[in-house]
């Protein structure tokens, strides 16, 4: 369910003593963990690249090449060197943004990813926004009306979000809202005849269309986006609403809330200006975690909706045994996932001195 999510704020930058530490020390702890985790990620992708059943030399020279050519390429790739040296070279290349060349598209993987990543970001961002704007008020309401119907609705939505296979939900939604009711546009990011009109500036279609004042394209892009984003948003909604509820319950049982009520403040002020303020910091962490998990969790949704994002890029490459692209995509998603998690953790430590 909330895999590791709740444990991350405590787990990161561990080794903290009982004495209060400065933010700088906490931050350097987080940075150290960040570097270590990145190193771990690259080590894992390196190992995966080494044990794969696809011979990287054969993939380049083809199976008709002579032994001489094979040996030459084998040496060029550095496969005759000791493992640690190969790993060092691998890191060196990664540090320079060199993820190798994709066999499928014949472009450098880094270039491909720059092209596909914005689509995923667009999807994940809108899905997270939906989760925040619907989930947070829902969670607050559930906490305030604990044990009554708003609370039950949050529980049911949560169970639904955690139990439904997202790719199946997407398919059924396409069937109902696209095929039967025709309320939204179908798979893909744009209708075919709008393709290629908008100049990619940010890569995020809706922003690009708005920049060029192509409102028709903007509407079309929105109509394509709304369904996959809602499906993806179901999960974030469930998680955010549930966490908001439990954070709010903690606060509402505190004495300062009672004091505020005794002072005669309106219920609205008690909830939003007192209790909710104290929840905000924790919420930011949760929203960061959700956003990161949606970045990687969009793989299945992208497949269903033919959404040309990083997830689809990875899966298609996978079936073409295009290891450079798969591992490149894994590293980019991994780095953004880990980065966002650590960033929200850092933010938490910065805003809330108790967390140091």
């Amino acid at each position, binding site marked *: *369910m909330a*895999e*590791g999510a709740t*444990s*991350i704020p405590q*787990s*990161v930058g*561990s*080794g903290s003593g009982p004495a209060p530490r400065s933010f700088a020390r906490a931050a350097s702890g987080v940075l150290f*963990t960040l570097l*270590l*985790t990145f190193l*771990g*990620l690259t080590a*894992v*992708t390196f190992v*995966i*690249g080494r*044990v*794969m*059943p696809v011979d990287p030399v054969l993939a380049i020279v083809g199976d008709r090449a002579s032994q001489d050519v094979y040996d030459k390429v084998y040496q060029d790739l550095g496969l005759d060197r000791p493992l640690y040296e190969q790993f060092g070279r691998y890191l060196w290349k990664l540090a320079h943004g060199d993820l190798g060349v994709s066999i499928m598209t014949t472009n450098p993987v880094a270039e491909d990813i720059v092209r596909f990543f914005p689509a995923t970001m667009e999807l994940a961002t809108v899905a997270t926004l939906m989760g925040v704007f619907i989930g947070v008020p829902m969670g607050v309401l559930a906490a305030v009306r604990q044990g009554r119907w708003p609370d039950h609705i949050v529980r049911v939505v949560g*169970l639904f979000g*955690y*139990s*439904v*296979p997202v*790719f*199946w*939900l997407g*398919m*059924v939604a*396409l*069937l109902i809202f696209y*095929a039967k009711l025709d309320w939204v546009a179908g798979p893909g990011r744009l209708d075919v005849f709008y393709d290629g009109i908008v100049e990619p500036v940010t890569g995020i279609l809706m922003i690009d269309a708005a920049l060029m004042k192509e409102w028709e394209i903007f509407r079309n892009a929105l109509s394509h986006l709304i369904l996959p984003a809602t499906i993806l948003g179901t999960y974030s909604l469930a998680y955010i609403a549930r966490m908001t*509820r*439990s954070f709010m*319950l903690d606060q509402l049982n505190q004495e300062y809330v009672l004091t505020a009520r005794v002072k005669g403040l309106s219920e609205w002020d008690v909830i939003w200006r007192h209790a909710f303020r104290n929840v905000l910091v924790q919420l930011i962490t949760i929203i960061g975690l959700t956003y*990161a*998990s949606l*970045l*990687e*969790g969009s*793989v*299945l949704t992208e*497949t269903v909706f033919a959404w040309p994002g990083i997830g689809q890029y*990875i*899966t298609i490459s*996978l*079936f073409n*045994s295009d*290891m450079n692209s*798969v*591992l490149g*995509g*894994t590293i980019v*998603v*991994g780095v953004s*996932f*880990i980065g966002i*998690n650590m960033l929200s953790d850092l933010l938490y430590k910065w805003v809330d001195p108790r967390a140091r």
Partner: protein
Amino acid sequence: MNERSAAVSMHGVGLRDWLLSNAPHSGFQARCQRFYLAWLIFRRNPIAMIGLVITLGLVLVAIFAPWITSTNGLQPELMNRLQPGSSEHWFGTDELGRDIFDRIVWGSRITLYIVGLVGMIVVPIGLVVGTVAGYMGGYVDNVLMRITDIFLAFPRLILALALMAALGPSLENAVLAIAVTTWSPYARIARAEALTIRNSEFIMAAQMQGASTAGILYRHVMPLCISSVIVRLTLDMAGIILTAAGLGFLGLGAQPPTPEWGAMISTGRQFLLDQWWVPTVPGIAIFVVSLGFNLLGDGLRDVLDPKSGE
């Protein structure tokens, strides 16, 4: 008749008394009592009971699959392609004329196989890493927990995908990929438990009696860590099922003609518009089963670990 029912009810009362007596006479009785008391709490939670019923239903369906179904769900029957639901084929037939109900029933075995196998890999690894780290402390703890943290921070689905790319698509490889990406939280939980157990007096007693570290870990520390690890596993079950189904949907898990639910949705996709039941029914099966595990997990957590409940 009167005598017999009296004997039965006598026995019933006797059993209840035995289970609730304040002074258990044997370790066995004490253990039974613990389970019974937990069950009494569990029984009061209707949502958890629904979860239990669904989960038990899944197990029963898997066990009795040969008796429930009329085919093995693998043989094509092209005369019966894409039939809608009827009294003969409850959920209709798929693109090769195979009965979808039969395939769902046989697929329940695969679902249980995946969940069971992942659990069997993940729990021992998590227990060993966690208890060793927590009990030994110091240098060992630091190294093991750093590794755990690294795995905890990884994006799971993507990592599983990359692993599948290296290992090649198959059911066992999918299980392996899921296990590699799921073990880390178990190590954290086991470590937290081991840290509290480490300083208890009975551990000191065992140490003074000259028990070996491995013996203490195996006999005294691990058994006490198991309950929280099991609760976590039950809560994770739904996630494991969904990930496995997702891998199957992408074509990376079980290969056709295996009736794996995710793969069934994937092959049924092209018939969505005209024969909606082909991809829809397996999705409902996945939903119901993961819902069952989620409900059961929530209930178990309330019983075994009332503190962390909301």
